[in-house]
């Protein structure tokens, strides 16, 4: 179904935008590095590809006048979410550009702000690209060219948004969102859970997981001891 496809693509774009936001947060801070800039570039390229695909998929049904009212409402909902996502992405890209120009990596005269954030964000980018892990292949002067590229991409996204507004007329005030206030407190939808299971397998770093692993081993040891005792009791009786 076209709608399910669109929803899945929109979820992927949403994920990419959220990860990009998370990565842009740390530009200029103590975790800034070539790797971070590379991750940013990969994430935003993925987000842009997804955006182009979604736009093609959504424009066709919305321009089709013969569509039923409920279907149209559904597509309009998706459209509103899509354009909001794209706006967020564009805003983050602009901020990344200003921050990137203010905090260039190769000039030691301007030190990075010591924000206390350390450690890589490779996992975040990997999550955005739905990949298992990320390889870093950038050369030294990467961030400067990347900024030029970023400028061009911002213009492209801006044009895309403008195009979207001109071609499809969706009055925002008539769209009713599915989620009510406080909907985020309800249980997560099942689509998210399955994707999480894949990624959580990798996560072994960090002292907090160490304590969890410790608790798990103790529990299993106790369980084994209980089973062994039960077997002994059974054998004896």
């Amino acid at each position, binding site marked *: 179904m076209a709608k399910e496809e669109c929803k899945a693509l929109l979820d992927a774009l949403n994920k990419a935008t959220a990860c990009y936001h998370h990565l842009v947060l740390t530009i200029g801070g103590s975790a800034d590095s070539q790797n971070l800039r590379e991750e940013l570039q990969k994430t935003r390229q993925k987000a842009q590809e997804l955006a182009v695909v979604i736009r093609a998929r959504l424009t066709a049904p919305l321009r089709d006048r013969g569509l039923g009212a409920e279907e149209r409402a559904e597509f309009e909902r998706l459209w509103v*979410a899509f354009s909001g996502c794209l706006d*967020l992405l564009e805003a983050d890209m602009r901020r990344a550009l200003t*921050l990137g120009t203010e905090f260039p990596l190769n000039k030691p005269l*301007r030190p990075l702000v010591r924000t206390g954030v350390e450690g890589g964000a490779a996992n975040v980018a990997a999550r955005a690209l739905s990949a298992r892990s990320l390889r870093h292949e950038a050369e030294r002067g990467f961030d400067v060219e990347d900024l030029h590229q970023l400028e061009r991409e911002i213009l492209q996204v801006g044009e895309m948004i403008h195009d979207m507004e001109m071609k499809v007329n969706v009055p925002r005030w008539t769209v009713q969102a599915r989620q009510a206030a406080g909907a985020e407190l309800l249980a997560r939808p099942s689509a998210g859970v399955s994707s999480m299971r894949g990624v959580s397998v990798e996560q072994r770093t*960090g002292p907090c997981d160490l304590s969890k692993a410790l608790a798990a081993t103790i529990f299993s040891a106790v369980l084994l001891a209980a089973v062994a005792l039960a077997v002994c009791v059974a054998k004896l009786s």
Partner: protein
Amino acid sequence: MERMVVSMQDPDQGVKMRSQRLLITVIPHAVTGNDVMEWLIHKYCITEEEALHLGTLLVRHGYLYPLRDPCHLELRLDETPYRFQTPYFWMSTLWPAAELDYAIYLAKKNIRKWGGLFDHEKEHYDQLHRKISHTWDLVVMQAREQLWAAKQRRKGDRLVIACQEQTYWLVNRPPPGVPSVLEQGPERNSCTAGRVQKTKTVDFYRREVECLRKALGRARVKSSVCLEAYLKFSSQRGPHDPIMSGCLPSNPWVTDNDTYWAMNAPSAAVPTRLRVEQWAFSFRELLEDPVGRAHFMDFLRKEFSAENLSFWEACEELRHGGQAQVPALVDAVYQQFLAPGAARWVNIDSRTMERTLVGLGRPHRHVLDDAQLHIYMLMKKDSYPRFLKSDLYKDLLAEAVVPPETKRRVFPFMRKLRHSSPSPALLPASASREPSGGDGEA
């Protein structure tokens, strides 16, 4: 401020960094209030008070945030630890804060704390939900995804990022009672401040002198006189004002009953009492009301001086009419009212008549202004007081209708439901049904 913060980061000359120890995690890059103060004093050679003020400004604008008591943004001169804010959340990058971002932040906080938002945050949440309810899907999706993205990092990083975001929103959406640093006073607006510093050349002073001389020559009214006139106006008009003294029969905006408008229409057959009383306030009132003007014309006919009012009306038409008709109209007015031996000759004094005749050679819109003014003053001083004392006027007053106030219904639940005017998006067929329903009620 941002340059100051960046220079604080210098590894050799910047502020001394310590580490923050939480239960298991160690997060570096914490500074104490004392360190910040000392660095400021040392670098800028300022007094302690100034350094304290500067430091407090830094904290209030969110460049530095306290780690122990995040809700109170102030600089303390003891060992309380602080940390620097990431450049993403600096004032210059994210100015002004967007509603959608705030909504996403509140949704994230909701998820993390299981609905444990502060009161003002709950209010904001409800407000935002009303304002941008169409994008609420996006808000929820983004909130969930951002939390999952954050979980990909180490615990220490996660804590730091959460603190950073919290500080940013504390600065941009301060809780009630905390003064917002974002409000700019009038003196910070640079465009007005720039104009004061003009070079005082000779020309400038010449212009000033000219301006002041003109100002001296202007006629001024004493404020006591002004205020008296104002008071008189207010007391005279008070009972006539629909807002101050209520309108009879009822306020159409409240009860959907438009009798009030029908009765006070410009061409109503029987004027209301208030309207007739208004004609006594000034001559201008009488002339501006079409019904009043008609009655005045009747009165003048009885006194055989109706040509004055006709002449005045013709001059008004000339002044406000089309440009193409001006020459023809001037000619017609002259033939009818001003020529010697004209059918309806008006009595204008000789000087005004001379001036008008000269001007008639080049007719334009305002050529008859002097004559019109003369006639107007004549009518005002002579005919108008007589009109007010005449029997005609007194009869009008007696006949004028005072509409009764609509009775309030005794049973409140039988009151007609007040509905707002139909939305323009509705079809006009339904809109046309509304006023007929209203009239049937009245």
